[in-house]
């Protein structure tokens, strides 16, 4: 399979501020992402995972190294890399339907078939009956479904997800995780998913990247061959979880860190 994303030698340093030393957010990161893969980048706060995503999204620029999307260097944000933000980032002054129309206009994909596509996408995400509602009147889970619907409508080949379920309660989170897996199996979009939850990474991804901070580097790159639908209570799942937590715990300076999360 051809690589959709090719990152090599990627380095980002945030300059010294207020007398503090400069922060090496990313140091010589190499990462290849195949078309249609589902990759989760996980690690503790400050490991550079969000910086990595922001460079791929085109919101931030690296200090060194290259970031190629389909063999072309990233030069700014664009609808080929649709982003789902933790803060939803829906436009509160637009109804659900207007948010969808705006997304398709912005992406230059608003044509005669667009209304039908919007309806089908909103129906798929269970939001069609709420099309006249403003985001303010939607629950957190519905808001994030709309944010995903928006990216589906513009048909981004790559979906960037920055801890998208981080602000949701555990039950809503579990439902959306299951929905996302179904969606990925249907569409086979390439997903780059950022999370700080080991359970989330293992439940969702085909491949898990583990990063540690100071400097931000990749310490583990592992394919997850658990069969789907995945069961988070199996011994195999727990073995993988232990393996990953062992990789992270030295960086947290907490000896014998175990399952710190009760998600799902």
């Amino acid at each position, binding site marked *: 399979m051809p690589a959709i994303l090719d990152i090599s030698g990627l380095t980002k340093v945030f300059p010294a501020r207020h007398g503090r030393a400069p922060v090496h957010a990313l140091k010589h990161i190499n990462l290849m992402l195949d078309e249609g893969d589902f990759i989760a980048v996980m690690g503790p706060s400050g490991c550079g995972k969000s910086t990595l995503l922001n460079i791929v*999204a*085109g*919101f931030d620029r690296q200090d060194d190294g290259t970031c190629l999307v389909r063999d072309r260097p990233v030069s*700014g*944000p*664009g*609808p080929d*890399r*649709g*982003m789902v*933000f933790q*803060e939803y*980032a*829906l*436009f*509160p*002054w*637009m109804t659900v339907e207007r948010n969808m129309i*705006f*997304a398709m*206009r*912005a*992406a*230059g994909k608003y044509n005669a078939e667009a209304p039908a596509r919007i309806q089908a996408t909103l129906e798929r995400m269970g939001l069609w009956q709420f099309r006249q509602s*403003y985001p*303010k*009147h939607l629950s957190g889970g519905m808001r994030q479904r709309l944010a995903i619907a*928006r990216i589906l409508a*513009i048909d981004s080949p790559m979906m960037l997800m920055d801890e998208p379920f981080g602000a949701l309660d555990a039950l809503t989170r579990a439902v959306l995780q299951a929905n996302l897996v179904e969606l990925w199996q249907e569409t086979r979009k390439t997903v780059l998913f950022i999370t700080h939850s080991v359970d989330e990474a293992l439940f969702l991804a085909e491949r898990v990247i583990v990063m540690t901070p100071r400097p931000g580097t990749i310490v583990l790159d592992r394919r997850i061959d658990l069969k789907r639908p995945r069961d988070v209570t199996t011994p195999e799942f727990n073995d993988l979880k232990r393996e990953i937590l062992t990789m992270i715990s030295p960086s947290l300076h907490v000896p014998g860190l175990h399952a710190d999360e009760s998600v799902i």
Partner: protein
Amino acid sequence: MVEQVRVLDGHTMAEPARQKPAAAAGAILVPVLRIGVPVALLVLWEIAVRAGIIPARFFPAPSALFAEIWADLLSGKLVVDTLSSLNRLVWGLSIGVVLGVAFGMAMALWRQVDAALGVTVHVLRAIPPITWIGFSILWFGLGNRPAIFLIVLGTVFPMLLNTYAGVKQVDVIYLRAARNLGAHGFLLFRDVVLAAALPSILTGLRVSLGLAWILMVVGELIAVPAGLGDTLMRAQDYDQTDRMLAYMILIGFYGYLSDLLLAAVSHRLLRWQRGIEG
């Protein structure tokens, strides 16, 4: 009487019983106060003038004011004056709003424009608009234009500052999301920047509308041989205190009505900010 309140998920929930008497009292008392107090003031005023406590020549009774307005309404003078004044108000306010929004946007969006115009704008806005009256007559002569000029000067700065503040406050997450979806140019400007700044712009418009009424009358008192302000000035010259006070209160009433209208329009445009009942 309100028995139940709607909550966000659409279910209804009984209001706590102990809140009922207070809420019920408010529901009756508030409209009574809203209408009752002004009516009571008018009645007291009328009685005071008729009883001779207030001399009618210095402060005419409400009945005399209503009679004056009724007469001017029948003669058509009131309609002519009102339309003439509104014409200047609308022109002045429109030009002030367009210039204020345009410059406020430009200064908020481009740092160079902000640097180039910032000091000038802040010095000019600190000059009371009324002090320009001499130059407005010198430059434009008598007629509509000096009054429109005054209104523009008074409204452009509140519009500019509120637009500037509104754009500066746009959350960067909306700009990121819009650019990520591919938005740029006019679509980004209209659907994101302008839409996000709209609450602040409408606040500026409300301030500007009030100033526009004041400056319209000031302009007419001095430089325009027509309109409500001109009639007010002539009434003063001929010692027609009935007409003077009647037109003063009429101007206040027009100002209030236009503010209500704008509030209703804002309410509709900003319905996305409100709860489910909105």
